[in-house]
Every structure is written in structure tokens, then in C-alpha cells.
């Protein structure tokens, strides 16, 4: 049995079916990239997996337990962290407070401190800006902050929604490199949703390509990258 199993999942977005009978699996410790253009239903999928919106049919399980029908605040507590689209930080709070939110519900305060220290080591720029309001950060720094906050919860499944959105190529590379490092070091399973197919597939083990809410194909990312037809049709280069 795979660690993350999504089977026959459909999600409605108002009157529209945003995700239609989607099935895929991700093994423990893998990084899976979900690739698709704008409006392919990627964000909707992640929002359903983290409990923000309901699914209309199908199942989704993580380590045998259903992800559907649970509240996001409880899913986080069972190890599923979601970094939502658009640098999910709270601009009204400073960097330190944003990080603190990640561990606010955890009883083990010692480990929260350790996790925070690890994040600051991973993203040294955050340490320099601890007292600054998150509003003043650059796009890349915000993304680091959002990922960092998620890590302090010590998740084992990380859902990342378009971390590259609106960032310069160099920064994207840094962020992706950090994500790649992290999952090897922490044994994280990562579900990465991306429009930026090239960068995402480079670090991913498997790729899942969707279009208008339905599965196009999935497979080893190397193979996907090598498939000339796919590249032309869906990967856009």
C-alpha cells in the first residue's frame, strides 16, 4: 500500500467539476510533482486534501487514514502540512511570530525550539529578519517563511502549492533546492503542485500531469521529461 492514495476523487467548485475522478499514489519519502496549467484543478486538489473544501466523491488516504472530511487544523496535528498558494504568511505579524504559529499547538516546546532553530539554519535570511513584519519580506523570503512555519509542525506529508509563483528564476531554484534537501534529510513525503513543470520535475521522483481536472498521465519524472509529445503538449517547452 502506498503512503498517499488518491482514488476516484472528484471535487466540485460551485457548479463546476474542478477535479474529476482523479487517482494517483505517492510512496513514502517520495516527492511527487502535480503538473498542470492554470485552472487544471491543482489548487482545488490540495485544498481538498488539507480539509479546506469538501470532495464530492472518491477517497484520499494518508498512511491508511482518510484525509477527507477532516478539519485542516486537525490534519496539521496529524502530520499533514499545507503551504497554500501565494506565500501563506500573515503579513500583520512579524517573522518570529509567523514561525511561532507553526508550533503554537504543540506540547513539546523543546522540540519546537529545535525545529525553529533548524528552519533558521536552513533559511538564514529569516534569522536576519526575525523582528521585521512579514509584510516587508520579498516574495522568496515569504515563501521560505511559509515553508519554515509548516516544518515547525514536524509534518511527514508536505503539500506545497506553487511555491514558484511570482518568483525570479534564481530564487525558484533556491527554494526547490531547499525543498529537495529537506525531504531527503527529514524523510518527508512531498506533494508539489506546479505550473513550472521543468523545475518541478527536475527534483521530483514522480510526475502527475493533469488537465482540466482529469489525469493525463503519471510516471517517473525522468521518463516524463524525456517524452517529446508530453513536453510539447503539457510541459510547455
Amino acid at each position, binding site marked *: 500500500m502506498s503512503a498517499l492514495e488518491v482514488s476516484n476523487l472528484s471535487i466540485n467548485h460551485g457548479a463546476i467539476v474542478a477535479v474529476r475522478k482523479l487517482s494517483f499514489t505517492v510512496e513514502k519519502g517520495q516527492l511527487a510533482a502535480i503538473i498542470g496549467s492554470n485552472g487544471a484543478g491543482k489548487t482545488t486538489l490540495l485544498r481538498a486534501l488539507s480539509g479546506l473544501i469538501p470532495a464530492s466523491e472518491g477517497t484520499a488516504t494518508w498512511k491508511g487514514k482518510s484525509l477527507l472530511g477532516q478539519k*485542516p487544523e486537525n490534519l496539521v496535528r496529524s502530520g499533514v502540512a499545507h503551504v497554500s498558494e501565494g506565500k501563506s504568511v500573515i503579513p500583520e*505579524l512579524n517573522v518570529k511570530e509567523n514561525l511561532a504559529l507553526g508550533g503554537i499547538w504543540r506540547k513539546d516546546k523543546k522540540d519546537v525550539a529545535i525545529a525553529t532553530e533548524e528552519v533558521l539554519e536552513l533559511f538564514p535570511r529569516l534569522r536576519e529578519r526575525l523582528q521585521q513584519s512579514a509584510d516587508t519580506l520579498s516574495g522568496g523570503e515569504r515563501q521560505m517563511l511559509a515553508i519554515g512555519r509548516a516544518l515547525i509542525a514536524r509534518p511527514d506529508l508536505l503539500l506545497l502549492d506553487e511555491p514558484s509563483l511570482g518568483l525570479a528564476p534564481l530564487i525558484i531554484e533556491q527554494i526547490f533546492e531547499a525543498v529537495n534537501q529537506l525531504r531527503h534529510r527529514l524523510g518527508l513525503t512531498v506533494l508539489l503542485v506546479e505550473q513550472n513543470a521543468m523545475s518541478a520535475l527536475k527534483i521530483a521522483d514522480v510526475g502527475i500531469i493533469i488537465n482540466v481536472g482529469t489525469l493525463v498521465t503519471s510516471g517517473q519524472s525522468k521518463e516524463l521529461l524525456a517524452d517529446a509529445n508530453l513536453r510539447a503538449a503539457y510541459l510547455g517547452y
Partner: protein
Amino acid sequence: MLFIDTLLIGLSSGAIYALMALALVLVWRSTRVVNFAQAGQAILSTYLGYEVMNMTHNYWVSIPFAILGGAAIAAFVDGVIMRALVKRSHKGSVSEIAPVIATLGLLGLIRSLTGMIWGNAYLQYTSPLSGKGYMIGQHTIPFSPQNLIIVIGALLVMGVFAAIFKFTNLGLALRAASFQPEISRLAGIRVDRIRTIGWAFAGAAGAVAGALVTPTTYLSPNSLDLLLVSGFVAAVIGGLDSLIGAVLGGLLLGVGFAFILQYIGTSVTFSAAFIILILVLFMRPRGILGSKGGRRDA
């Protein structure tokens, strides 16, 4: 001398306005509703204090009961009524105004209930402190020990709130949940529960206002209605989103009122409040400390 007298009166009433404004802002920030029932909740908790005082004959003992009562009432209002409303009324022609209407209904409900229980007559909820002004030399200033306790009490509440918001995890969760509920949920904060706690804080602030100000006037089911209006005006002056703004708005309004009363006359009190409100809305639509985003898209 007259100037200082007026300032002192203004500070005392301003402190009460500030507490009420604080209560309104706390709820507004977390729920995006102006809680008109706040006046009702405060009156109910003040009646509770009144009953405790009748039993114990001690004003000071009654205050904590009023505060706890106010917090509990507010938690009940949010946990039961507002939650049901949010769940059910996201569609329909009334949906945009449903929360406001519900708080109005609640205000009416509490007024009628208190009227049924205690009658509409004016009751006395008295403080052992003198309502007579202090003497300075030959001059009696219009600032009594009760006024002093009003100012101290209000400052105490504000101090406690500030400390909670700034230094505790609860405060952090309260702030996060009111700014970005969705991100907060993803960070693991139980936003519903936190919001109810925010309401409880607001209820407590309103209860303090009621318990402190009532000895200077009288107690009846609608004796805090005008305070609701002043609190709202103060909150708007402060930008409706800012706790510090609410406090400053309250003090400014109190002092402003005092000077208008002193130098222009009592006949304009109401008009003054109304004109101040309109002026602020036109000239500084975000209040003196309001955050981003205009009032139109609020």
C-alpha cells in the same frame, strides 16, 4: 482650572467609551460583525453584578462575577448563535446583513428578557466610593473616587489585554486568527474556538464598562444604549480594526464631548456625537489608526 476639570471629566467618560469600543473592535476583528448586542450583553452582566451585590453587599465582589458573566454570555452568543448563522446563511438575500440583524435581534431579546426579570424601572447599583468630586484646596473638582476607579479599571483591562495579545500564545493565535483565518487553520489553530475566546474577551471588557459606569447613573434594560453609540463612534474614530485605535478613539471622544458640554452646552450632545461620526467617516475614512482597505470593501 476649568480646563483641567473638563479634561478630567472627559478622561473618565472616555475610559468607558474606550472599553466599549475595545469590545466592539475585538469582535469586529475576529468575526467582521459590529456586535450591536454588546450593549445588551453588558447590561445583562451588570444586572448579574447587581444581583451579586444584593446578596453579598459588596460592590467589589460583584465586579468579578459581572466580568465572568459577561465573558460567558459573549461566548454563548458566538458559540451558539453566530456559529449557526455562519453555517446556514451563506446564501439568500439577507445573507450580507444577516449577522448585523442577528445582533440587533439579540439586543432586543436581551432587553426584553432583562425587562421581564428586573422590570423597566431604574435600579441603583451602588459603589461604596463617593461620587463627590475631590477637593483641591477650596475647589471641588468634578472628578470623584468612582471616576478614578473607572479610569484605573479601564487602564487595567487595557493593560491585561495588551499583555495577553503581545506576550502569550493565546494572544498570538487571536491575532493570527483574526487577520488570516484560513492560514491560521492551516497552521493548526482551532479558529472557531479562538474566535469564541475573542468574543469572551470582548464580553468581559463590556462587562467592566457596565459595572464601573452604572454606579454613576442608574441601571435599566436600556441604560447602556447611548454607551453603545459612543463606543461605536470611538471605534470608528480608531479605525474599527485597531485595539489601540479604539482606546485612543474612546479617550478623544470622551474629552471632546466634555469640552463641547462645557463650552457649548448640553443641547448639542447628541448632535455632536453624530456630527463627529459623520466628519470622521468623511475625512479619515480609515480612522486615525485604521489598517489598510477602505470601508467600502470592509
